[in-house]
């Protein structure tokens, strides 16, 4: 029980709850069906990105290339396969393959040379956007029929009795649940998951313990890329059009969400639940400023402030734990043992 209360997840959940209450009290609109569906819609895509990014941050790296990978595969697939394929699965398959290739490129370079992941993925991100805009001359593009059909499907819809606004839950919701489960399963129920935590804790120790560090790193970057391809197509079906620059800048939100939810930037620590809560907090803030009567120009200020306060809280906590550990060690008499004998 005490452990639950002390965890980052608990605090974030508490903050979300308080925030929701505040918005509800101020506007009376938060807990209406259509608003909740709207929040989930906005949450869906970044939350899916969070899973791949979380794996990478737990190993001590960071990936900023997934919006570029998603945009590239989305545009290439939608603009090139339009006349060739009619089955949506083909679109998804090819997009995932493109994403996988870029992800493998990331993984090989980072795992082989041990470069800072941020800089390598900045490079591949630039290449992907360049290919999309230069080679494929990206622009806003209509969505082809099979994908459009997919996008117009809905799980259910909710109507606000007061305003009359209706919001539909996209079928991507199921995909998100599956991906969240997959992420949880890999991290908590497989040897691969242990390897991911082990690398983040200490690469050398992980190697000595027999983990294939190269293979694991390659897997997580390839996984992140592959999923980015999938999410790209999903995004276009949700928007019912191909907006190639729509995802730019999302990497920052996703990283911030992971860290807010207790995924440690230096590696070794983090949970799927935490990352999801972090993303939920950022989504609710982004989506609810208007309900609170705050102009949207303040959005970035709030996002920045939340990132700073959230990361500061976890940094201060980490420092405090370190100090406690040092005191414990000194009390144990291992290092300053002679002092204690002197005092006696």
């Amino acid at each position, binding site marked *: 029980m005490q452990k639950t209360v002390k965890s980052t997840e608990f605090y974030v959940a508490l903050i979300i709850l308080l925030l929701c209450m505040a918005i509800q009290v101020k506007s009376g609109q938060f807990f209406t069906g259509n608003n909740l569906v709207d929040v989930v819609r906005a949450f869906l895509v970044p939350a899916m990105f969070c899973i791949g990014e979380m794996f990478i941050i737990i190993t001590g790296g*960071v990936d900023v290339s997934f919006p570029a990978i998603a945009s590239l595969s989305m545009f290439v697939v939608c603009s090139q396969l339009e006349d060739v394929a009619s089955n949506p699965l083909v679109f998804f398959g090819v997009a995932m393959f493109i994403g996988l290739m870029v992800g493998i490129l990331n993984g090989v*370079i980072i795992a082989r*040379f041990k*470069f*800072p992941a*941020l*800089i*390598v993925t*900045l*490079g*591949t*991100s*630039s*290449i*992907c*956007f*360049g*290919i*999309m*805009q*230069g080679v494929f*001359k990206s622009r806003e593009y209509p969505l082809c029929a099979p994908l459009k059909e997919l996008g117009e499907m809905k799980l259910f819809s909710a109507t606000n009795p007061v305003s009359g606004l209706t919001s539909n839950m996209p079928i991507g919701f199921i995909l998100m649940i599956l991906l969240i489960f997959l992420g949880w399963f890999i991290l908590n129920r497989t040897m691969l998951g242990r390897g991911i935590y082990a690398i983040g804790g200490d690469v050398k120790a992980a190697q000595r313990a027999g983990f294939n560090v190269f293979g694991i790193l390659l897997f997580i970057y390839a996984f992140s890329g592959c999923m980015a391809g999938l999410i790209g197509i999903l995004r276009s079906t949700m928007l019912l059009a191909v907006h190639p620059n729509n995802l730019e800048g999302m990497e*920052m939100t996703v*990283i*911030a969400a992971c*860290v807010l939810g207790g995924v440690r*930037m*230096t590696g070794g620590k983090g949970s799927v639940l935490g990352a999801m809560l972090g993303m939920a907090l950022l989504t609710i803030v982004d989506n609810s400023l208007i309900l609170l009567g705050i102009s949207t*120009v*303040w*959005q*970035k*200020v*709030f*996002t*920045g*402030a939340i*990132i*700073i306060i959230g*990361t*500061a809280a976890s*940094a*201060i906590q*980490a*420092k405090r734990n370190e100090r406690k550990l040092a005191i414990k060690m000194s009390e144990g008499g291992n290092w300053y043992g002679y002092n204690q004998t002197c005092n006696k």
Partner: protein
Amino acid sequence: MDTIRHAINRDKNLARLLVVFLMVFILCTALKGSMFVSVSNFQSMGKQFPEFGLLSIAMAFTLFTAGIDLSVVAIANLCAVLMAKFLSIVIVPDMSSSAVFMMIAAACFMALAVSILCGAFNGFLIGVVGITPILATLGTQALYTGFAIVMTNGSTLGGLPKQLAATINGSVAGIPVPIIIFCVFAAISAFIMSKTTLGYKLRMLGTSEKASTFSGFDNVRLFIINYVLSAVLSAVAGIIMLGRFNSAKADYGASYLMEAILIAVLGGVDPYGGKGNISGVVMATLIVQMVSSWLNMYEDISNFYRQIIWGGLLIFVLIYNYIVNEREKKQAMKG
């Protein structure tokens, strides 16, 4: 002995960059001839590189200490927006020219003061609170951009006094003003980095934070100074951008962030900290500007190919430096 080897290594990096510079120059001249080697081309190049050159030096300072500053462009824009706002308030139609210049100078001081605050806040978050540099500056990037958006309502601020654009776009003895500003700040940065104890301490901090602590350096102070230096250079870039575009907006120059990291790494700054120097960064700035201007001369090559080239070049340089370092290590072991 170590210092001698260090000096040789440093010169090696610079020599390598010089060779690349000459090769690129010859290649560009051979392919585009008189179009490339023309006064007008050099003039336009000279107007372009100072702004992202300054941002690259700002980035390099933080890479020296094994950090990174993702907020450089945000600080530049925030300062430009503040200046534009200030000038639009204080300048009245029938003001004398000298009074206008006074106001512009005041605006510049204000921008520098704000940048010092921004940088000190970055340094505080990193040094005192203990947030990793990527996250701290990610947060402040959003925050500073956010303030600029709030102040402008997301729109472009124009209507600046003519004197400002005239000064920034003018030239002294044939040399464009931005180049003079760039040279002054690059020289100061190079001096700080290689000739002062502060530069030495920053390098030590980048090599190993623990060793720096045990050597009795005040790490918190060093972090704050480091990020203040970065922020001030960003503000100067912001002032130049304000004059060149003759307007300010919260999200100008978004691509400069990637370019600044690329140039710093290309110039031989080790992203793991401790290694590199300003002269390398300046050299890399010139190389990137040359390639950029040269690509501009091909009408059928889209601007976007540049992104592919920069991204590819960044990864190529990383791998190349890695291989060279490994070889040197092996040779050192043999010797």
